[in-house]
């Protein structure tokens, strides 16, 4: 770069380097941003999925108990399998 416009550009660059940066304190804003879940977080979805899984498990256990007549879910489950599988 060696003509007038380019020299003027480089002079502007030299001047621009002297521009003082603004003072700022972003610590509170950063703390506020990192303490809330990021946008699109899966936390609500994960909580809902966990709740659904627990509810489904409870329904299965109660159904097995009711159908087999055994109060112990594991015994009830094994008996239910035995009844279904045995011809």
């Amino acid at each position, binding site marked *: 770069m060696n003509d007038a416009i380019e020299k003027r*550009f480089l002079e502007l660059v030299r001047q*621009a380097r002297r*521009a003082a*940066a*603004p003072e*700022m304190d972003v*610590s509170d804003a*950063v*703390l506020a941003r*990192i303490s809330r879940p990021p946008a699109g977080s899966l936390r609500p979805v994960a909580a809902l999925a966990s709740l659904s899984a627990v509810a489904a498990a409870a329904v299965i256990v109660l159904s097995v108990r009711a159908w087999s007549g055994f109060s112990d879910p594991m015994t009830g489950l094994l008996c239910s399998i035995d009844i279904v599988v045995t011809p």
Partner: protein
Amino acid sequence: MSTLAADARMILWGPAGMPAGSPLFGQVDREYASVPAGYVSIEDAADIRASLDGDGQAYARIVRRYQGEIGRYLWRFARGAGECEELTQDVFVEAWFSLRSYRGRAAFSHWLRRIATRVVYRRWKQQRAARPDRRLQAAASALAAGQAGPPPDPGQARDAVQAMLARLGPRDRLVLTLMYLEERTPREIAALTGWSVTMVKVQAHRARGRLRRLLHAGEDVT
């Protein structure tokens, strides 16, 4: 290895060979062998460690310690004080979520600058289709027309240079900002951008060519 640096790494990574539940542990032996002395101060190491354990106040201390340096760096890229502050926030938020990946292979400030460079580049790519700022475009046009006059103050000069560089693509703009305004060498630019030194040189050569055409003809070279 200096005693201070060894102490700092002891705080950050724990004693060698002693797993302690954090993903940083288990890397200890390798890290101790590869980390040159003096990169992590004891206060940084302690605050990073506490931040990894969820201590927000420790991270606030890190932010206050480095926000001036990162803000001055980002001032080279930002169009105004508001954008500079937004970018600084973005850098420290991104650093928080990436803190576990900091291995102490370079100074913490250098690691933050790399994040800052990435944040700026990403923003420029998103802004590519945005409407240009008329005030800055006027300053750039005056420069491109070669209008002589008294030397502008640093703020005006900064506006004009920013406006001119903003008419380039994000890669050109990044490499020229680092080269002209930050006065970085190709090796330093490579370290900040993650590009190879050869790629930086090629990109800088092409970007200067496009800038030269822009200065002479005022043509849109994005």
